[in-house]
């Protein structure tokens, strides 16, 4: 699991942050590798934003140690980071281009560089004509794209983006997603914090799930899903599912078409597939392993934690 120090974009080691008597982050450790898309997820109040703020040196941890892009964070490191907070905003009364140039310059770009790059990115996302409009004249979706541009304008090595797709329609979601993929292909590490599990499933290489300040899931997205896979299959078709050898429980799916077949401990999905293939009593339209979605894992993990209270703050 551990990568060498030079391969790490972020190393968080035993970090704790308290607000008075409340422990927002409790002895949290994780790593983000260079060039990966890393997802942070967790319920509201889990400690995601506090963790991000500590990574960005907006907040100081009470205990523990954080390294960003190869060392403790400095002003120079900050210039290599693009950050888009969840509750984001813009100067409303300012022209789009002027604002982007200002924010770009604060990140170390020259005026001309910031201007050229902002115009190119605005054109890329279809906002070239709005460069001289005031921000308040833009629609919410357009503003969202401008915010994403402000985050990536200075070609950061690390992008930390909170809920990148909130407020975007499907077309713009794809556009922003492509932009992030493009940055990632160029070697930029991306950390995204989101509630949209399907986006994590699609985009992220690895994930960290936090609940009440603790890491409750951490690792490769695919591995995590496999870890939560039940010994069950989902089928759609016709036949007496309960009569199949090895099936112990049959649960009707919520959509009324598919069913979940829970299998006996010594039976594998392959056994069931072989049985179905050889029996003329069944017609199969769909057969797949019952790997839970991240959403289900999230609900299971967070719900379980809440139920047994094992992760009290």
């Amino acid at each position: 699991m551990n990568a060498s120090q030079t391969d790490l974009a972020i190393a968080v080691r035993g970090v704790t942050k308290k607000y008075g008597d409340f422990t927002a982050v409790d002895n949290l450790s994780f790593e983000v590798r260079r060039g990966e898309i890393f997802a942070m997820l967790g319920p509201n109040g889990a400690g995601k934003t506090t963790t991000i703020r500590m990574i960005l040196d907006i907040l100081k941890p009470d205990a523990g140690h954080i390294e960003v892009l190869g060392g403790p964070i400095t002003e120079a490191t900050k210039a290599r980071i693009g950050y888009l907070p969840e509750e984001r905003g813009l100067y409303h009364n300012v022209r789009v281009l002027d604002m982007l140039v200002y924010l770009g310059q604060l990140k170390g770009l020259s005026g001309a560089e910031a201007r050229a790059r902002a115009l190119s990115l605005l054109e890329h996302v279809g906002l070239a004509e709005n460069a001289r409009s005031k921000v308040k004249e833009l629609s919410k979706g357009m503003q969202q794209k401008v915010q994403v541009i402000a985050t990536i304008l200075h070609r950061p090595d690390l992008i930390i983006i909170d809920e990148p797709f909130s407020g975007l329609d499907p077309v713009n979601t794809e556009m922003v997603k492509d932009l992030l993929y493009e940055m990632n292909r160029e070697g930029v590490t991306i950390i995204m914090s989101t509630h949209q599990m399907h986006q994590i499933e699609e985009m992220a290489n690895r994930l960290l799930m936090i609940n009440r300040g603790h890491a409750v899931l951490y690792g490769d997205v695919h591995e995590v899903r496999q870890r939560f896979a039940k010994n069950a299959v989902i089928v759609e078709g016709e036949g007496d599912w309960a009569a199949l050898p090895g099936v112990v429980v049959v649960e009707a799916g919520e959509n009324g078409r598919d069913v979940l077949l829970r299998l006996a401990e010594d039976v594998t999905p392959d056994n069931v597939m072989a049985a179905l293939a050889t029996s003329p009593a069944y017609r199969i339209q769909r057969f797949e392993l019952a790997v839970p979605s991240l959403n289900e894992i999230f609900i299971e993990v967070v719900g379980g934690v809440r139920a047994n209270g094992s992760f009290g703050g």
Partner: protein
Amino acid sequence: MLSRKVWLVTRREYVYNFRRPSFLFTAFGVPLITLLAMVVVVWITAERETSLDNFQRVGYIDRAMIINPAVANPAGYFPISDPTVPMPVETSRGKLIGEYFDGLEEFARQQLQNGELDAYFVIPQNYLFSGRIDVYMRRNMPEALRSGIENFMRAQIASRAPDTLPVPVKRLGALEFVIRDEETGEELSEAAILGRFILPFLLVMIYFMSTSTTAQFLMSGVVEEKENRLMEILATSARPAELLWGKLLGLGALSLTQVLLWAAAALVIRQIYQDARAFFSGVEFDPTHLLLIGVLFLINFVLFAATMLGIGAAVTAEAESRQIAGFFTFLSVLPIMFVGTFFNNPDGALPVFFSFFPLTAAVGLTLRLGLLGGVPAWQIALSLALQVVAVLAVMWLVVQVFRLGMLMYGKPLTPRTLWRALRQGSVTLTTAPADAPIAITGRRKGLFRR
């Protein structure tokens, strides 16, 4: 040396706020309106000054005894003569002659008051040396009367010079008129007198207008950045102190721009409007005092602006910030509210107190310097020391408030929170999310978001 980021923030704040309609109106509109008003006043005055209807009977008293009876008086001009006062003979002693003219002046004064005279002028005994004429009237002196008296005097001098009177050539040029109080005889330049009282007050008002505009921008700018959540992005781009100084310098420069624009307008007005010259000459600050006033206003601006910045960083909504700012503005305008005490006794307890209290010291000292012409050095030194200490303390506190409050959305920074953080010594951009402890109790779950 200014760091690049401080310069960037300074420039951004300056340019952005310069373009605000409210700034453009205050900076350009106010001087423009004043100029227009002056032009109208000059025009009305010029209209009025061509008329001599109100000056049909103008008397004169010749204390210098240079009037040549052979020269005909212009229409409406006549020497004052009191039939009850006997004219002294030529050999009379100086004292007797003086008493005679005093009697004539008293007589003329009564006639002026009774309305039998519209104006009278006295040619003083030392006229040949001073070239001054004392004019007494109950109205403003019209330009036509001025030139009428000048023509009268030129005709008189020309009739005698150069044979019998050693009149310098320059006497044939413009005369110097001294308008005197009809009761006390004191020299009276209305505009100058007005300037003497109004100028320090005006200076202070201009300062207030410019600082209150810019301090308001400063505060609303921070509140906007907090409300728009831009602060978090800015916090990852620049240090809080860089943002703070950038904002202070940018808006300080804006304030200075405003004052310079008004000063330029004042110079223009001074050029085109004669009375304005007298008005501005009413107060003569020496260069040391001007420098002192500059320093005082600079310190006061930093103090006031930093306070506003702190308020902006501590609150969550603009309306709230205005309420708190109102309290500090109220404190700083106290000298204006009690300006009467300055006019009554500039060395009184209240004016002296205002000279020491840091928020009011600049205004208090300026008013007293203008009215007294000087303030004890120890008071100036103590006042400056108190202000510098206050600026250092407030700046330190504001940096803490700025760091602590800049990320607190939806929850104002209370003095209690600030005090606790300062005592713990943990003000390193550390702030509890608005509702962390509340989430534990579960009472206001909706607020628990991060």
